[in-house]
C-alpha cells in the first residue's frame, strides 16, 4: 500500500502496488514493459513551487514524475522506454466550487508532467465523483480500478 505522499518500487513479477481510497489524489504508475520493474506514487497536490522545501517529492505532481523516472532508471530501466498509467482525481463533494475541487488540477498537472518528461500515458481513469482503490499487477501490467460507488463496475486498464 502506498500512503498519501509516498511512493514504492518493485521488480517482483508476483508483486502488486496499490493505493486504497483515492479521492482527489492521483495514483501514477511508471514501468518499462520489457523489464519487470514498476513504480507508483500517491500524489496529493499539483505544484511543488509554492512549498519552501520538498522532503516528500511524491506528494506533488511536478516532482513525483521525475522521482519515479529516476528511481526506475537507477534500477536499470531505460528512460525512453517508460510508459505510464494514471487513475484518480475525483471531485468528492458534489457542491464543491472550483477552489475545493483539487482533483481536476491534480490530473492536469500529472498529465503535463508526464508530457514534459515524454512518457506516454497508455491508459487512465480520472475525474468523476467517486473514489477509487487501485492495484497494479507487475506480472500482467494491469491496473485494476475499483470504484467507491458500489454500483460501478471494476475497470481493468
Amino acid at each position, binding site marked *: 500500500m502506498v500512503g*498519501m505522499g509516498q511512493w514504492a518500487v518493485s521488480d517482483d513479477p508476483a508483486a502488486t502496488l496499490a493505493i*486504497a*481510497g483515492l*479521492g482527489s489524489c492521483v495514483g501514477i504508475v511508471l514501468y518499462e514493459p520489457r523489464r519487470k520493474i514498476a513504480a507508483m506514487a500517491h500524489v496529493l497536490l499539483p505544484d511543488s513551487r509554492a512549498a519552501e522545501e520538498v522532503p516528500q517529492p511524491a506528494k506533488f505532481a511536478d516532482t513525483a514524475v521525475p522521482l519515479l523516472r529516476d528511481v526506475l532508471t537507477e534500477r536499470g530501466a531505460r528512460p525512453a522506454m517508460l510508459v505510464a498509467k494514471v487513475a484518480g482525481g475525483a471531485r*468528492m463533494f458534489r*457542491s464543491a466550487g472550483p477552489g475545493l475541487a483539487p482533483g481536476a488540477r491534480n490530473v492536469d498537472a500529472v498529465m503535463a508532467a508526464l508530457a514534459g518528461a515524454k512518457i506516454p500515458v497508455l491508459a487512465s481513469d480520472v475525474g468523476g465523483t467517486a*473514489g*477509487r482503490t487501485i492495484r497494479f499487477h507487475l506480472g500482467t501490467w494491469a491496473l485494476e480500478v475499483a470504484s467507491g460507488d458500489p454500483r460501478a463496475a471494476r475497470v481493468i486498464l
Partner: protein
Amino acid sequence: MLNLATLTPIQIDALREIGSIGAGHAATALSKMVRRRVGMSVPGASVIPLSAVNDLVGGPETQVWAIYLQMLGDLDGHIVFVVPQAEAATMVDRLMGRPFGTSASVDAIGESALAEVGNILTANYLIAMGELAHLKLQPSPPMTANDMVSAILDGIVAQLSEASDTILSLETKLLIEGDGAFRGYLLMFLSPDTLPKLLAAIGLWQPPGGSRTA
C-alpha cells in the same frame, strides 16, 4: 515558525482539551436532537504523518457518509463529521422519529437530515472552541459526500499539506448505545500555520522575541 514535531506535551494536552470542549458541545447538541444520552470518547490529539490519515475511522476503504465544513475566520482548519455507512440509516431513522430499520439506505431526505446534523454538530464545536480561545470562527456552508473514507479525506488533508508532511488531527467518537446504536466521528484538522495563533490565544505559545502576556 512553530513546528508540529516540537509541540510539547502541555501544548498537546491543551489541544486535546479544546477538542474535548468542542466535541462536548457537539455531543450535547446531538443529544437534544435524538433525545438520548450521547457517549463521547476521550479525544485523541496527535500529530500524524499524511500516510496515517488512511488509518482514521476503520481503514481507508470504509464506506461512510461525511459532512464537511471549512473553518473561516481567525483559524485555518477543517472539521468533518463521519458516520459509517452501515449506521447512517439508523441515524436517519432516529432523527426522523421512525422505527429503527425503516430506512434500508439513506435517501435524499435522509441525506439532508444528515447534512443538517453534521452542520449543527460542527458549528457547535466551532462556537465552543472560539469562545474558549476568544477567536472569531465561522463555518463554511456544509458539503456532503458518500464514499470511501480515505477518498473523502484526501482532498481536505491536501489543503493543509503544502508546507508540511504532518498534520494535527483531533478526533472524537460520539456514540449512542442500546436500541438503534450508532457511532459518529468528529475529526478536526488544523493547518500548521494556524496553530501558533490558537496556542497563543490560550497563552501557550509566544512568537520568538515577543513578550509573554498570558
